[in-house]
C-alpha cells in the first residue's frame, strides 16, 4: 500500500520536475528574446534563476502544482510577440524555403527540340 503511494508520489514529483525544467527553459529563451543585449540578459537570467531557487525546497505536491501553474501563467503573459527562431526551424524564415522536389520529376533538356535531333 505504502509502496504504491510512494511510487505515485515519486512519479508525480518527477512529472512536476519535468514541468519546472521545461518552464525554466522557455522562460530563459523568452528572457533572451526580450533582453537582446548580453549584459541585460545575464542580469535578467540571474533574476529568473533566483525566483526559481527561492522555491526549491517546497515539499507539498499541491503547492508545487499551484506554483507551477502560476509560473506558466506569468510566462504566457510575458511571451515575446516576435521571438527569435532559428531560421530552418518551424516558424523561422528559412523553413520550407527550398523543399526537396518530389521524386520522379526529371528535367527534359531538349524540350520542343526532340524532332530536330
Amino acid at each position, binding site marked *: 500500500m505504502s509502496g504504491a503511494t510512494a511510487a505515485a508520489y515519486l512519479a508525480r514529483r518527477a512529472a512536476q520536475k*519535468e514541468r519546472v*525544467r521545461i518552464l*525554466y*527553459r522557455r522562460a*530563459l529563451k523568452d528572457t533572451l528574446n526580450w533582453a537582446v543585449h548580453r549584459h541585460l540578459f545575464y542580469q535578467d537570467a540571474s533574476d529568473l*534563476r533566483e525566483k526559481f*531557487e527561492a522555491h526549491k525546497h517546497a515539499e507539498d505536491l499541491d503547492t508545487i502544482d499551484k506554483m507551477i501553474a502560476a509560473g506558466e501563467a506569468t510566462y504566457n503573459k510575458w511571451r515575446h510577440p516576435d521571438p527569435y527562431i532559428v531560421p*530552418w526551424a518551424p516558424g523561422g524564415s528559412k523553413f520550407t524555403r527550398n523543399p526537396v522536389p518530389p521524386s520522379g520529376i526529371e528535367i527534359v533538356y531538349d524540350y520542343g527540340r526532340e524532332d530536330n535531333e
Partner: protein
Amino acid sequence: MALRAAVLRHIRLPVQTLTATGSRPQPQWSFLRLFSSHDDHLTKEEVIDRVLDVVKSFPKVDPSKVTPDVHFQKDLGLDSLDNVEIVMALEEEFKLEIPDKEADKIDSCNLAIEYIYNHPMAG
C-alpha cells in the same frame, strides 16, 4: 580588349591558401568552392571540442573535470536548472533548435555530442 587578354595571359598570381587558426581545415585545392551546403557537416572532433569549450566556460563548472563522457549532474555536481542552461548554451553555440522534450533528456556530454553530431543542421 585584345591587349587586356594578352596582359591577362601573361600575369601570374601566386595562389595563397589562407589557413586561419581554428577554422575548418581547407584542403590544398583553394580554388575548389563548396557551393553545396550538404557536404560540410561537422566532424566529430570539432563537435567534441566545441561542446567541451562550452561546458568549460560555464561559471559553475570546474574546467579540469570536463571530459567527453562526463555527466552534468552526477560528475560535475550541477543542478537540473544548470542542465537546462547548458543545453541552451549548446543550442546557441551550434545554432540549433532542440525541441523541449529532447532537450530535457540531454543529461551528459555523451548525449549532447551524439545529438549534435547526428543533427543535420548543426552549424
